[in-house]
Structures are given as structure tokens and as C-alpha cells.
């Protein structure tokens, strides 16, 4: 019959016709038509006022709002991560006082709405007009005027960061718990100190379980910053675009402006998350050895993340209330 090509190692390769699937084509056509209608509706409906959208996309107040929102997002995540690692380590300690303090913190900050907490931080200077460092019930060394130290920005940052720490602490705890006990033992048998074991052996391995949900938390935090008007802090993206919208009596185009910026930042964060995950997934069979060698599937890493139960696949999923 036919002579197989000399390069094909399979001499009797099968060349069959696929099963006809008209349903696929019909479904695709319907979706394309619906999408076209939606885009047409968006572009041609004059109420969207694309001219205003375009003008305010690069407005100074809006860009400044983007800056403040980013600052709040990253600032509060940094506070959150540092505190969360501390809380998670306290939670693992054999000191019952540290353990219960950590438990209480998480209970308190996860158990109350972020909105309430932000209002509270906004009112802190009313509650405590002066702050002082000293010995409880004893002498005070330094005293501050609260409203000077804790401005609206710091109140917002603290409010978001302290709340986030409670959520991240649980993620970090799950991450630390996901590392095989044998790892600690092997490190201990080599004479490493507990602190070194945590820093060099346990935390790096916990990271591949911690990073994906923390990425989601960051994306979630980006949007949670829109609640800082509770403090009230009035420079972030949502507040700025709302204010302009109200002033122009054109709320819709300004909502689109803010949605555009949130989407853009989220997209950039998703790219960053991808690379971070790849870095901390090293050694789990998802990449080549540094110089040549065999490849293995990435299933181990995925399985570990799934097993920890802290990751969510949907980056837009709201994890912080």
C-alpha cells in the first residue's frame, strides 16, 4: 500500500477523520454573536460617555488615586505578611501565652468586619488623644499627640494590615504545617538551630503552599482598599473616581475608569504571581535541573498546594470580607 515516510517511527500511523461536532460550531457562533452585541451595546450607547472615560483615565487625581491604592495595597500586605509569620510561629510555639495571644488575635480580627475595624482606627485619636510609651500603670517615657502620629493614611494602612494579618496567619500556619516533619528532623540531626531550620528549611518549603493564596489575598486587598472611606481616607482610586463622577453628574464613565485601573493592576499582579509560584515551586519536579537532565511533571507541587486547602483557583474570588 503506502510507503511510510522514512522519518516516521510509526509505519502504520492512523489518519482517521474526527467525529463531526456541529454543536461546537453552533455554540461558538452563538457566543461570538452575543459578545459582538455586548461590545456594540457598550461602544454605541451614548450613556457610557466614552469621551469622559478617555479623558479621566489619565486624569491627575485618578492617577494619584491609583498610586494611593497601590501604596495601601502593598503597605498593608507587607504589614500583614510580617505579622502573619509572627502569629503563625507564635501559634506553633510551646509557650501557652504566645499560643493563646495568637489565637485571640486571629479570633478578634477575623471575627469582625473590616469596615468596622477601619471606622475604629479612624476614631482612635478620639479614644486615645495621646499615645505614650512607658510601663503599664508606671512612668511614661514619650508621649505623642495621636492625631499627629496616626493620620488618616496610617489609620487606613494599619486597619487593612492588621486585619489581613489574621487571614494570612492561617495561610502561613497551613503552609508551615504542610512541610514534612522529617525535614525538621533531618536538619536537626545535622546540628542546625531551630531558627535556622525555620528560615532555611521549613519556610522556603512552606512558601510554595503560602504564595498562591497570598497572591489571591493581594488581589483581594487591592479591591478591599476601596473601603478606606470608612476611616475616612479620601485619596484612593474608588473615592477619587466617585467624587469626580458625582461632581460631573456622570457616575457611569467614572466607574468604568476605576474598573479599568483595578483590572489593569490585577492583571499585572497575576503575572507577578505566576513567576513567584514558579520560583518557590523549584525542586518539586516542575523544571529542568540547572544544567541538563530529565524533566518531570509538576504534579507534586500542585498536589501539595491542593492538599493544604488554602488555595483558591479563582484570582477574583473574594477571600477577605
Amino acid at each position, binding site marked *: 500500500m503506502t510507503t511510510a515516510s522514512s522519518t516516521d517511527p510509526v509505519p502504520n500511523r492512523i489518519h482517521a477523520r474526527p467525529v463531526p461536532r456541529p454543536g461546537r460550531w453552533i455554540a461558538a457562533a452563538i457566543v461570538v454573536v452575543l459578545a459582538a452585541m455586548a461590545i456594540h451595546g457598550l461602544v454605541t450607547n451614548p450613556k457610557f460617555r466614552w469621551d469622559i472615560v478617555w479623558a479621566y483615565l489619565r486624569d491627575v487625581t485618578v492617577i494619584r488615586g491609583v498610586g494611593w491604592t497601590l501604596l495601601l495595597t502593598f503597605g498593608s500586605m507587607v504589614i500583614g505578611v510580617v505579622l502573619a509569620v509572627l502569629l503563625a510561629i507564635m501559634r506553633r510555639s510551646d509557650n501557652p501565652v504566645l499560643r493563646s495571644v495568637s489565637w485571640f488575635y486571629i479570633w478578634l480580627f477575623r471575627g469582625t468586619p473590616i469596615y468596622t475595624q477601619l471606622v475604629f482606627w479612624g476614631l482612635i485619636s478620639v479614644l486615645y488623644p495621646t499615645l505614650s510609651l512607658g510601663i503599664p500603670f508606671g512612668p511614661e517615657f514619650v508621649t505623642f499627640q495621636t492625631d499627629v502620629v496616626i493620620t488618616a493614611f496610617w489609620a487606613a494602612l494599619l486597619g487593612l494590615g492588621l486585619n489581613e494579618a489574621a487571614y494570612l496567619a492561617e495561610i502561613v500556619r497551613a503552609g508551615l504545617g504542610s512541610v514534612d516533619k522529617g525535614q525538621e528532623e533531618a536538619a536537626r*540531626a545535622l546540628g542546625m538551630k531551630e531558627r535556622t531550620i525555620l528560615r532555611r528549611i521549613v519556610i522556603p518549603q512552606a512558601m510554595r503552599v503560602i504564595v498562591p493564596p497570598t497572591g489571591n489575598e493581594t488581589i483581594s486587598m487591592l479591591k478591599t482598599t476601596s473601603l478606606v472611606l470608612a476611616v475616612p481616607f479620601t485619596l484612593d482610586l474608588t473615592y477619587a473616581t466617585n467624587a469626580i463622577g458625582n461632581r460631573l453628574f456622570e457616575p457611569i464613565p467614572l466607574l468604568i475608569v476605576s474598573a479599568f485601573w483595578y483590572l489593569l493592576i490585577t492583571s499585572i499582579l497575576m503575572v507577578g504571581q505566576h513567576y513567584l509560584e514558579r520560583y518557590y515551586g523549584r525542586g518539586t519536579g516542575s523544571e529542568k535541573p540547572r544544567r541538563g537532565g530529565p524533566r518531570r511533571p509538576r504534579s507534586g507541587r500542585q498536589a501539595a498546594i491542593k492538599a493544604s486547602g488554602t488555595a483558591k483557583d479563582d484570582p477574583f474570588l473574594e477571600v477577605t470580607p
Partner: protein
Amino acid sequence: MTGSATPMVEVRGAHKMFGDLHVLRGVDLTVAPGEVCVVLGPSGSGKSTLLRCLNELEVLTGGSVRIDGELLGYREDSAGVLHRLHPTAIAQQRSRIGMVFQRFHLFPHMTALENVMEAQVQVLKRSKREARAKAVELLDRVGLSDRMDHYPAQLSGGQQQRVAIARALAMDPEIMLFDEPTSALDPELVGEVLAVMKDLAAGGMTMVVVTHEIGFAREVADHVVFMDEGVVVEEGAPSAVIDAPTEERTRDFLSHVL
């Protein structure tokens, strides 16, 4: 035999309880420098527990362990009262005792080379260059010079165990402990690990090996200990304990594994 020298390992009246479970019931064990001691015994007899007590991964409930004459885990004052050592001092003691586990426990986020370098840098404070040179030499010695940049997940079980041995050797230990180092390996990979261990023994390393490899015990051991239910039932030269056991329990066990 160097009868007069300080023993490398000296266990006296070791008792270990896990809650109500009495696992070690008065174990005495002496291992001379350069000696290979193989510990045999049925599952649950306390072999792993004994080995883990030799480097403080478990703390004895009673009795004492001395490594090269130094009391493990405590300082004894002139009145004979024991004071628990600071964790840093215990870590320092452990760094001189190499341990190889049944399930390897290599650090998965580090390459073979980094695994062997890590504790040299973190514990012995060697420079990266010095640690790397030592790691390269040891990986070469265990036959893995072409696998240095592989992560553990990219190595076979036998290769991982050889890296683990190199990792322990990198600390220049005075003694090496092996807890069933070949039990998690496919049969065809057992030989390569045993070969490395034989090489070590020939080089004069003091070793305590828990294993079910009777052939290895017969060939390499200077001293075989048979344990059951937390006590040493019988001990002596392999020719005595393995080939002519006097105790019923030893005979019974050997008839099952041989």
C-alpha cells in the same frame, strides 16, 4: 580491639517511655571507635528509638548516652546533678553525629550540591567555596559527580540516599547512624547504597546500622546486637549471633528474615 580506648558510643541503662509505652527497657551498648555495629530486631522492638536517642532526636527517660566520652544532652556538676544543656549546645553535639534516615529526607528545594553544602555553611560556618569543594568531593565519592545540579525529585531512591550519606559526611562526623537506609529502596538499588556504606566502614568510620540486610551484617559488622521488646537479647560477633545464636528469640527472628 582497642579495649582501653574511650568507647565512641556508650549507652548505659537506657529507658524510654512514650506516655505509658515502655519502648526501651534498660539498654546497654558499647561501640568502639572504628567499629561497625549492626542492630537487628523485629519491628517495634525499639531499634529506631535507640538510634534516635543516640543523637538526641528523642530524649531518654532514664539512663545515659556518651559519645566519645561526652555526656549527651546534659552537664553533670560536681555533685552529680544533671543540668539540661542549652539547645545550641545540643545542636552542636548533634553536628558531630551523622544520621541517615530510611526515607532520605533530602531538602527538596535544594539541589544535591546545595543539600550537601547547607549545614556546612549554616552550622560549621564554612565559606561557600570551602563547602562547595567539600560537597563536590563527597558527591564524587558516592558516585554522583554527574548529578550535583539535580533536585532530589529528579534522582532515584538509591541516588537520593547516597546524597543523604554525603550530606551527613560533610559535617566530618565522629560517628554515623543509619536507620534502615535501604528499606525504602527498590531491590535493584539496595546494592549501590550498601557499597557506599561498605566503603565508609573500610575507611574506619564508626557506624551504628539498623538494617534487615543480614548479608551486610555478616560481611561488614564487627559487632551485631539483637534487640527485642526494648532490651538487648544477644550480642557479639556476626559469626556468633547470626550463624550460631544461643537465644530462642534470635533464632526465631533469623528464621523469618533469612
